[in-house]
């Protein structure tokens, strides 16, 4: 099926949810509200005509100061059977920084959602194992947010694990061969 056709059908099925349909270089993305994201995804998965059985990618995006709501969770879907694609972008605001988990639809969403939580701080409601994944458990902040510095001297706020490494290296300096 043509992805544009799927997007328009989705708009008729969920008129209150679909905000916008974009097309760029032949890729169609549908911007939706986050409230019924699981219904939308279940429909895209279950409908035999769509049959998006493969969640290619799930990631976050931060549009700080560019648009409101600030965050988006982006789902890139692919159908192995029909070989068509669509992109769903769910808007998440900074104040209500949570969205329903889609792990019940695609098991593979599990780690993607953990990563999105780790790096953007978006909570996934109903996730079976909601923990940080790439960064240590006691890390402060969410690095892929646009207001997180790429490089800076954190001083007292430095991650304790790193401070311990620096301390050890200072202590071991006396064993250096001169």
């Amino acid at each position: 099926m043509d992805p544009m056709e799927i997007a328009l059908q989705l708009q008729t099925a969920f008129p209150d949810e679909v905000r916008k349909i974009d097309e760029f270089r032949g890729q169609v993305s549908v911007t939706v509200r986050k409230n019924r994201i699981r219904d939308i995804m279940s429909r895209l998965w279950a409908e035999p005509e769509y049959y998006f059985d493969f969640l290619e990618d799930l990631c976050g995006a931060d549009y700080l100061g560019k648009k409101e709501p600030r965050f988006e969770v982006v789902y890139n879907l692919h159908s192995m059977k029909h070989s068509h694609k669509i992109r769903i972008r769910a808007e998440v605001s900074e104040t209500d920084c949570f969205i329903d988990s889609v792990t019940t639809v695609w098991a593979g969403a599990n780690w993607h959602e953990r990563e999105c939580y780790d790096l953007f701080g978006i909570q996934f409601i109903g996730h079976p194992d909601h923990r940080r994944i790439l960064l240590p458990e006691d890390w402060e902040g969410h690095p892929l947010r646009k207001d997180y510095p790429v490089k800076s001297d954190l001083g007292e706020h430095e991650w304790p694990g790193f401070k311990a490494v620096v301390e050890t290296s200072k202590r071991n300096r006396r064993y250096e061969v001169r």
Partner: protein
Amino acid sequence: MPLETTESKTTEMTVNLGPQHPATHGVLRLVLDLNGETVVKCTPHVGYLHRGIEKIGETKTYTAALPLTDRLDYVSSMTNNVAYSLAVERLFGIEAPPRAKYIRTIMSEMSRISSHILWIATHALDIGAMTVFLYSFREREKLLDLFEMTCGARLTVAYPRIGGVRCDVGPEFLRQLRDFTDEFPRRVREYETLIDQNRIWLQRTKGIGFLSAEDAINWGVTGPTLRGSGPCYDVRKDRPYDAYADVDFDVPVGAAGDLYDRYRCRMEELLQSNRIIRQCLDKLPDGPILAPDAPDLALPYDAPKKKIFETSLDHASIAFSHERDFFPAGEIYSAIEAPKGELGFYIISDGNTRPYRMRVRSPSFIHVSVLPKLCEGHLVADVIANIGTIDVVLGECDR
């Protein structure tokens, strides 16, 4: 006197595997809850190699972000570069010239062969067949020498560029590569004689690490790990890029979805890759290797030289010395078939010289997340075999 029978109590034991363990192929840590020799629960911990490549990518220009992608799957950096270049090309709406496309296809397939060879070497070593390692590194060495001959680097090549490749291949390269392809199928047979009928190999791979086709798709598994379970999904066939539409090749699939089928898939892929390289060598067209409108670090072909020397030493002005508007605002998801599976780049552009968001969809990340499913309920000895069969590189998993 009757023997007193005491009821034996079993308690679960927690074993920590890794992160420094030779069989984890990098720094993967697994926490295993064991009941006797059976794995009850397996919890992977990743992130030891997290370098924030996505964050750094946002601070670099499109051309300067390319070498970062080398550091993802460092055993096949050619395919990473191709994936990134293709994504940016599609975003900018430029197309590489035919010769560059063919060269990139050749390099991708050489990369696939060297990656699969490394896989069979280490996987066999992990489950007890040492000899294959020594044989297969002989062929990998040849391929790395060929990479070195073309671009001066063996692992982190940064050879494909946005809109083409960095430099042309020489006649000596083509001659040696042809010699390699003549010899290679015989070498693959050699590996097979070592392990294919080996009783220990068969017992350690047949019926182990089962993954059904539905589960594999639902978990988002791609590449040979998926194809070993049956589904015939290959990005090279599904949405051909570069020169894959012009060459003839088969996509091997398995049926049982166990370790042995995945191994067979990868062995067949070695031969298919060899076939693709031969066809590309026969058809290799002449012409430029870089698109005229490519935003490359090499000086663009039609750029007036004088103008470039007059401009300041600002990177952006050298790299983008054209007046054409290169930076459309938009977003693109573009994927290729890397040796490990589907490697995708999702790039959001806001019309600036730097990507607003650079997301890497890495196959290894997904494959590690499937490990608990493969390991739980099986013997602890098979954990190592399962880590091998999903073919992970932790640099790509942690990014």
